[in-house]
């Protein structure tokens, strides 16, 4: 029974990891930029929610209405003002710039909020659960998975059906040819980063409700996000959700054996995928 329960908890946790991973995947897909500060932006959003909760007493879930658009705007401006100058040259520049951003964000948060662990209290939803036979499924983990699936589904629809989505996919295929049909790649890149930070803001706030967070937590989250993307397969959004679930299940089942084994088991599964199926579970075989 414990195993079944942990399996379900792991699957639900996958929704959170998928939300972390999807923005990373989107930015890489559109502009071949690996944003090493991605996890730190999630933590920034969690602190943003904390400030709003402290100031107004709002439920942290309601702060999403402000934090998500705010992070979108921040992402757009960050790309137009900084990252657009780093992409397009050699591959090292964006890595150095986003690594620097990561350090700046961590120290800024440390300066403003100290190194204490903080949490967001979403009220009763955190402690109540849905009884499914002998399994108890928490409402909040369930909401996390549903939200994660909704974020991925929404993004999938946007990419598949809208004018902006076509522009982003065209830019991803061939930036110069996209320019020739009238796509301003600087704007397209900025929209991608805006969307990425909007999605990771949701992830950061859900993380803050689920557990505690502190300024230095970003890089750990970045690694989980990378693992979800790679396990699922690059370029497949539903693969990312599956990758998040595989990682979540590996971690909860590993932790069942011994609490110290949780994160390690996740890493081992990730390494196994890299070794035996490097294109990921749902990715297209890599051909270059």
């Amino acid at each position: 029974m414990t195993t079944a329960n942990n399996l379900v908890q792991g699957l639900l946790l996958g929704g959170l990891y998928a939300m972390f991973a999807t923005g990373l995947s989107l930015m890489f897909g559109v502009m071949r930029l690996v944003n090493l500060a991605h996890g730190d932006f999630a933590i920034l959003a969690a602190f943003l929610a904390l400030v709003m909760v402290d100031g107004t007493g709002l439920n942290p879930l309601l702060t999403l209405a402000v934090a998500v658009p705010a992070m979108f705007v921040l992402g757009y401006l960050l790309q137009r003002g900084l990252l657009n100058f780093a992409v397009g040259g050699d591959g090292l520049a964006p890595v150095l710039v986003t690594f620097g951003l990561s350090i700046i964000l961590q120290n800024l948060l440390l300066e403003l909020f100290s190194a204490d662990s903080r949490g967001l209290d979403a009220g009763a939803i955190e402690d109540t659960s849905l009884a499914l036979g002998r399994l108890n499924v928490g409402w909040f983990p369930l909401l996390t998975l549903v939200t994660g699936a909704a974020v991925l589904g929404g993004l999938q629809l946007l990419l598949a059906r809208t004018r902006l989505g076509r522009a982003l996919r065209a830019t991803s295929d061939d930036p110069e040819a996209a320019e020739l049909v009238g796509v301003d790649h600087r704007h397209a890149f900025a929209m991608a980063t805006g969307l990425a930070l909007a999605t990771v803001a949701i992830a950061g706030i859900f993380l803050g409700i689920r557990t505690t967070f502190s300024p230095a937590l970003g890089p750990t989250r970045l690694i989980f996000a990378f693992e979800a993307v790679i396990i699922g397969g690059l370029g497949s959004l539903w693969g990312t959700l599956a990758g998040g679930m595989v990682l979540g299940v590996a971690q909860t089942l590993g932790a069942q054996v011994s609490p110290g084994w949780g994160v390690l088991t996740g890493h081992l599964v990730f390494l196994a995928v890299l070794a035996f199926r490097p294109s990921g579970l749902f990715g297209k075989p890599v051909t270059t």
Partner: protein
Amino acid sequence: MSAGRPLLEVAGLDAWYGDFQALFDVSVSVAGGEVVAIIGANGAGKSTLLRTVAGLLPRTAGAVRFDGADLAGVPAHRRVALGISLVPEGRRIFPSLSVEENLLVGAQARRPGPWSVPAVLELFPLLAGKRRRGGGQLSGGEQQALAIGRGLMANPRLLLLDEVSLGLAPIVVRRIYEALPAIRAAGTTVVVIEQDIGQALRAADRVYCLLEGRVALEGAPASLDRDRIAAAYFGVRA
């Protein structure tokens, strides 16, 4: 357009392709409604000329004027909005988009005009029934038709076609060129780079021949004989 003013005027253009100067003092003038062919040997600067007009390469001297307005500093995507579409060499179809999506993304600049997905599919029967096909799964001729259709979706006033017939079977080339009268009838001015001199002379109102980055010959096909073209093309004096 006011009478007498050319739609496209390239004056004294110098352009570089990397560290290599590809164009020297090139002047080309295209009137509204014309079909102009640019011929010349490999490396003569034909593609560089079109890429500079489209805004992909910077000019270092001279001017490119479109309907009288200087295009200096106007980025490529803004030139599409002004009405200049380049169909690039190698087609450059977006492989992860379907045929229909490749056409729809061509309308990104939102210029009003006669072209739509059904209109393009009617123009190129080659593409009929392949709307949902992935852009990467097309034959060379289908890709070329799609690339031209994608360019038309921007409803351009000036359509630049780079190496239309390169690598295509003669029958496919003929089917592509059969679309030209309809494109022209829609009011679009066309500049085409063509390897096949016979094809260029048949299709165009005027021909420019480039030689080592300079205009070596210009004129209406009827006014040019084979010897003069050969001399301008290969740079040999008979």
